[in-house]
């Protein structure tokens, strides 16, 4: 059988629908994991031992469990105790929680790298702790951590393919269906390779733009 992608033509709308679902789930999970990451990083660097300990346990827990096990627990485990959530929502939440654990670690190192003198200057000028976090700590930490955060986000996109295991026909799920319908796995998965590579390339392009924007004061040295 020669390589022939045209055979997939009738399945393009179906695959596109899957790709859109992946893009939606990833976009939501990306925002979710960034919010969780910021929150948990703030808790981990807080002066309260209880809060920082709790945040540490969360990060350690979710980084050390395979994502597929977390996902199965949420989707197949929780209904046993009466908690039903649809596959898409479960997927987005699970990705956000897992991504949040990794993001928070990256953001935390960005926070710890901030010169303490800068925070002291903010304190003596009478700014409240929430304002200092919002206006000074967070923006400076994001400047330095946006590149490593990009790696976390790219990983998130790749990991989203696992959502196909909980009945969600996102990109990988749809491709599997098309492959078994057409008996042309080579063509189908070749297209899938390119589709994921394009998606993650888009993410790294966006990260590059953000990085330059956040660090515009020291361009071109850190470009």
């Amino acid at each position, binding site marked *: 059988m020669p390589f022939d992608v045209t055979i997939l033509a009738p399945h393009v709308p179906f695959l596109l629908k899957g790709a859109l679902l992946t893009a939606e789930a990833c976009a939501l999970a990306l925002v979710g994991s960034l919010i969780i990451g910021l929150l948990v990083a703030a808790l981990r660097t807080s002066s309260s031992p209880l809060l920082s300990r709790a945040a540490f346990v969360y990060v350690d827990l979710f980084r050390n469990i395979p994502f597929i096990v977390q996902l199965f627990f949420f989707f197949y485990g929780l209904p046993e105790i009466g908690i039903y959530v649809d596959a898409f929502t479960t997927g987005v939440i699970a990705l956000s929680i897992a991504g949040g654990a990794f993001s928070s670690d990256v953001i935390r190192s960005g926070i710890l790298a901030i010169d303490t*003198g*800068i925070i*002291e*200057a*903010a304190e003596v000028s*009478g700014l409240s702790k929430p304002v200092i976090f919002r*206006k000074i700590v967070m923006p400076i930490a994001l*400047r330095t951590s946006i590149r490593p955060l990009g790696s976390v986000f790219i990983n998130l996109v790749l990991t989203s393919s696992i959502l196909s295991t909980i009945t969600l026909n996102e990109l990988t799920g749809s491709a599997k269906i098309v492959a078994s319908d057409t008996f042309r796995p080579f063509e189908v998965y070749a297209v899938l390779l390119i589709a994921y590579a394009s998606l993650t390339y888009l993410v790294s392009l966006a990260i590059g733009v953000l990085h330059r924007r*956040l660090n515009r*004061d020291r361009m071109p040295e850190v470009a």
Partner: protein
Amino acid sequence: MIRARGVRKSFGSAIVLDGIDLDVESGEVVSILGSSGSGKSTLIRCMNGLEKLDAGSITIDDFDVSRPKDLAEARKRSATVFQLFNLYPHMTAVQNITLAPIQVLKRSRAEAEAAARTLLDSVGLGARADAYPAQLSGGQRQRVGICRALAMNPRYLLLDEITSALDPEMTAEVLNILAQLAKNGTTMVFVTHEIEFARTISSRIVFLDKGQLVVDLPTEEFFAADGGMARPRISQFLSKMRKD
């Protein structure tokens, strides 16, 4: 006034401040001299609440910096300029200066920005108002640091070795501004190694050694042969500093 009574501070087993009494009245310029490790910077950091006192008290206009409730008010009345500038790197000069006036004093953005630009003009940086710290020289950064402190209309300006990280030319830029402020009657506590400059602007000189206040004298008396200079520790220190 700023009033320090019996201030003690240790880091581990090192005693840094060993019972300091000091008054700074409104309108005074008090320079604090002493060799490195004598406790000068720590004393300033106790005044603005960055270090907790082990014993004794510091009040700014009767607000006790050791009491969290009073500290906020004490910090509204004083402003600090730091040795390493400590500007917010992600903000322009104007944003650095307006952040606290907007957030703490609840000024409108327009009002705060106009005031910031006036301040920057007065230190010769009007044209650099929208530059980021990374785009400014050390002397320019410290001038922004001074504007940031002044924007809070403080009654007391605390200056912590603010020229120690600058070369002589930039030091002159910054000291000129202080001379101007002193002339306008701004109250200053000035921790410094710039002895000659301290001599020209200070009303009083305080000399610290090993965490203790050795002398607290009017400037003329401090430099008089039969005044502070009569003490071997001080004449030794001054002759060493002048050689460097």
